[in-house]
């Protein structure tokens, strides 16, 4: 096997190992299902109370879904790195010499899977609470949007989660770092979801260009994260 192929195999094996471990910890701890998901649903309900108008809610439903996702993402990122720093596991990970790109991709993959589950529930909540309507074509756009957007969120979250993991005041630092950077995801995902829901008569076809933005964002931060994560951990 060539050196490059061996390196890729090592990154893939590490990513799988980390992702399985993170998802197993989540399955045991149930923080997503027992804390983050209820929080996101409460945010959705509070928006419904605050806006108190079916017409307005129908119009802003896509934005509310992604805002609730964004806020909840911060908790999932914080949890993902809290389990690493609670007993010095992140330091141990460095000493294993496991490829940092594999560690990054594994943590991002586990985050993405959790965020996808979260978005699925929030879209369902939007349909029930805000009476959002989704056609078959809209459904395809929505699923693709969710995959691309959560991939971007997970990549940014893992990158900045790793950066702030050892920092003082990381709880407040993380939102300050993450929220401005993921603004393109919020905008792109909201516009694409508006098309999927047919909000204000927007056609499904108008949503696809926004998907390109989400894919470019996800690829950019996934590649940057995979390259830079080792230096971040070493700092």
């Amino acid at each position, binding site marked *: 096997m060539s050196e490059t192929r061996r390196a890729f195999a090592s990154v893939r094996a590490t990513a799988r190992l980390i992702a399985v471990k993170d998802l*197993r910890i989540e399955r045991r701890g149930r923080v997503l299902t027992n804390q983050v998901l209820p929080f996101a649903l409460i945010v959705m309900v509070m928006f419904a109370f605050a806006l108190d108008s079916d017409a307005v809610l129908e119009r802003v439903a896509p934005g509310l879904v992604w805002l609730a996702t964004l806020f909840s993402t911060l908790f999932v990122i914080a949890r993902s790195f809290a389990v690493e720093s609670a*007993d010095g596991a992140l330091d141990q990970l460095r000493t294993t010499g496991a490829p940092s790109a594999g560690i990054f991709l594994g943590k991002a993959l586990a985050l993405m899977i959790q965020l996808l589950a979260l978005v699925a529930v929030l879209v369902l909540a939007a349909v029930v609470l805000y009476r959002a309507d989704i056609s078959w074509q809209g459904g395809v756009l929505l699923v693709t949007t969710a995959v691309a957007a959560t991939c971007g969120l997970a990549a940014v979250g893992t990158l900045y989660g790793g950066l702030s993991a050892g920092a003082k005041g990381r709880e407040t630092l993380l939102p300050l770092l993450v929220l401005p950077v993921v603004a393109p995801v919020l905008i792109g995902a909201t516009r694409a979801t508006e098309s999927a829901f047919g909000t204000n008569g927007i056609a499904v076809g108008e949503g696809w260009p926004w998907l390109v933005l989400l894919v470019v964002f996800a690829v950019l931060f996934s590649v940057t994260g995979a390259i830079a994560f080792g230096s971040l951990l070493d700092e």
Partner: protein
Amino acid sequence: MAHDLPVELNDAVAVLGAFPVLAGANLTVQRGEIVLLRGPNGAGKTTLLRLCAGLIELERGHGHVLGLDLSTQRWAVRHRVGLLGHANGLYADLTVTENVAFWGRTVGASDAEIAAAVKRMGLDGRLADVQVSRLSAGQRRRTALASLVARRAELWLLDEPHAGLDATGRDELDDVLRLAARAGATIMVASHELERAGTLATRQVEVVAGQVRELGATS
């Protein structure tokens, strides 16, 4: 020149920020030795261990760990050493076996190697499937050491390994370390508990102001 000793440092300088924590340290460790690092707080014991683990850069001088150059092969060094600091590096929600398996798999350990590591630290049977959050401090320490075994660490770098353990836990830990050294592991222990660590060690050195002074073999 062949460098096949576990640790060879010549005039090693390591800097944290702008401050040289190790200032020309010289140290040689033979295979199977248990070396006690003595010295006051801030003398550079932890930095010496982290340098040997490939976690910090060698600023000047020469250093080889397990035959690998600390200047150019730090990443490869990390694969072959195990550093255990004040924390255990365990996941509280996972069981003993899941933790050991996770760390073992980072170097491609087989199921048999993982089971052997768990057994070697006396964690097989009922304890194997217990979540780490439910273990005593001593049992957690043994789980962390089992992870080092599963990771095939050839050089064990232990920073205050007795901290937080009761008398029974300390005795158990010493037994485990002696067994590991007999099985071929080389161990460096930084400790303030000189009486206990002194009886465990085969040799003692003192780290003072970033330099290493030989104190000789212990009986």
